[in-house]
């Protein structure tokens, strides 16, 4: 039963959503291209940029790197630049996993659960779907930024250059590396955080409604931009706030633990919530 559910979710919830992939491609190709434009203007402002060969990893970092922490002067927070690009990326990733479980719950999923009398298979299948859907969309965005980098003359590499830190409003004197740094550790940490957030959204959707859960998640992510704190998972999905790249950043180790904890907690809580949900009562979202 579980594998039938999973097969259905994978085919209808991921592979048949071509419009979503197309929209994602257009949006993130354009957004990646802005790194090329930024680089050209940096070359005029700082001549040392001419000697740096940009890599495809730079494009990815510029897209999803986030921003440094706000500066505080005389008790007043100044210099907070809202990382709209990062916020758009995070909210897109949440949006692509927002409505499929809910529409399934109101339609096909409800009938199947009632006929089979098996709610746990439906829920665990949706959890695996959320993991798969998030991973596929994330990898797709990575490939789009890589493609954009290659099209605009970037070198194919997983090493990011130091200059991207300037684009992400990071303090250059606090960087943990001199020239280049591998992006793979951040790539996997960010993916884990996105999976945790998408499961949190699914559980919240069951508890309240998908629309409110999305609103709460947006508020939670924005609060995370303001506070560099482990309680706000979004911080771990920002390269500009990670100790991999900046000495004052959050440690990746606790980030992995927090994300795993959120994942298991939400799988369990969602299972309990679904067990008590009135399936015939409907819902308006």
């Amino acid at each position: 039963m579980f594998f039938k559910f999973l097969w259905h979710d994978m085919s209808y919830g991921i592979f048949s959503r071509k419009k979503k992939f197309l929209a994602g491609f257009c949006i993130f190709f354009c957004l990646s291209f802005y790194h090329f434009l930024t680089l050209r203007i940096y070359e005029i402002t700082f001549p040392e940029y001419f000697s740096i060969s940009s890599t495809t990893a730079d494009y990815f970092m510029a897209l999803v790197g986030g921003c440094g922490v706000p500066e505080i002067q005389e008790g007043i927070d100044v210099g907070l630049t809202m990382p709209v690009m990062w916020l758009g990326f995070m909210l897109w990733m949440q949006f692509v996993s927002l409505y499929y479980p809910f529409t399934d719950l109101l339609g096909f999923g409800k009938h199947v659960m009632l006929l089979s009398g098996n709610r746990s298979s439906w829920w665990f299948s949706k959890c695996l779907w959320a993991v798969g859907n998030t991973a596929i969309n994330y990898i797709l965005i990575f490939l789009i930024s890589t493609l954009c980098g290659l099209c605009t003359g970037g070198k194919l590499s997983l090493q990011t250059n130091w200059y991207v830190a300037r684009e992400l409003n990071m303090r250059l004197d606090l960087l943990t590396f001199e020239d280049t740094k591998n992006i793979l550790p951040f790539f996997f940490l960010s993916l884990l955080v996105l999976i945790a957030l998408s499961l949190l959204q699914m559980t919240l959707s069951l508890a309240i409604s998908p629309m409110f859960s999305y609103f709460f998640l947006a508020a939670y992510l924005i609060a995370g931009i303001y506070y560099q704190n482990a309680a706000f998972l979004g911080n771990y999905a920002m390269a500009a706030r990670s100790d991999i790249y900046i000495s004052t950043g959050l440690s990746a180790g606790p980030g992995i633990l927090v994300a795993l904890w959120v994942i298991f907690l939400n799988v369990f809580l969602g299972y309990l919530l679904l067990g008590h949900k009135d399936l015939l009562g409907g819902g308006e979202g």
Partner: protein
Amino acid sequence: MSFFRYLKNELFCILHNRRFLVILLILLLLSVFDGLDAYRTYSDTLAETLACYPKNEEGVFLEYPYLQIYTLYNSWLGGRPNKVIPLIYFYTMPAFVAIPYSWSHLQERKTGYIRNVVTKIGKRAYFLGKYISAFCSGFLTVVLPLLFSLGFISCLVPAYRPNVTTDLYYQVGQNNMYTDLYFSHPLLTAFLNIGIVGLFSGLWATVPYTVSFFTNNRFVAVFAPYLELLFLLASAERALVFRSPIETSIIEYIMVTASSMVHNIWVFVGEMLILLAVPFIVVLGQGRRSNVF
């Protein structure tokens, strides 16, 4: 049924809508938390000033105490510079103004309710009525918590006139379009800002309504315009970095504080006019063409 009766009925539905009331409650709670945080900052500064600044026997300060660094005008929700709750409020605004009502057209199309109404008042009146109601829903959702915040903070923090020598605490820089008015008539600026924010949110609430003509998915109708806005903001920000000092983000324009870029009132007026004209034209055009039966 006349057009005005239909409009009255829709406004009644908005005000008695569970989603509207829940969003309003959340925003009012945010206003209260933000207000209490602002009051704590003000009272801590006051206590520190009273303890540290020298006074004569009559209790008069011997040095200028700069008490106006925390005033009503930089403590209410719309005037607090770079604080977390105002940031959440303004940056999630395009999402939450759409939740209460903007997708109701989609729901009425699915349930068939639209046919009953169109039979009685006609297509043009129905779509125009929906447009006006969506605007009112967005306007009320945002303006009521801001008015509440201004009233609530005015009970807690004195309304000292902002002083240009301590402008770091207000974050209303010389490039800001509100600067002159803010330092000369701060209360008027606060009300003007509430009006502008309300106008933006009302106009924004009509965008998901417009999108609902092209999709059957309510989540796409409500949140796709928000994502599109973030995409446009990020695009303008990245494409113009170091090329133009002019602020392009409409969210930064409607906030009194924070932006370090140069405000150009014509950019803002242009963006608002686009926000007014495009949904209005699309609604009237689609409304005329759509076959509701």
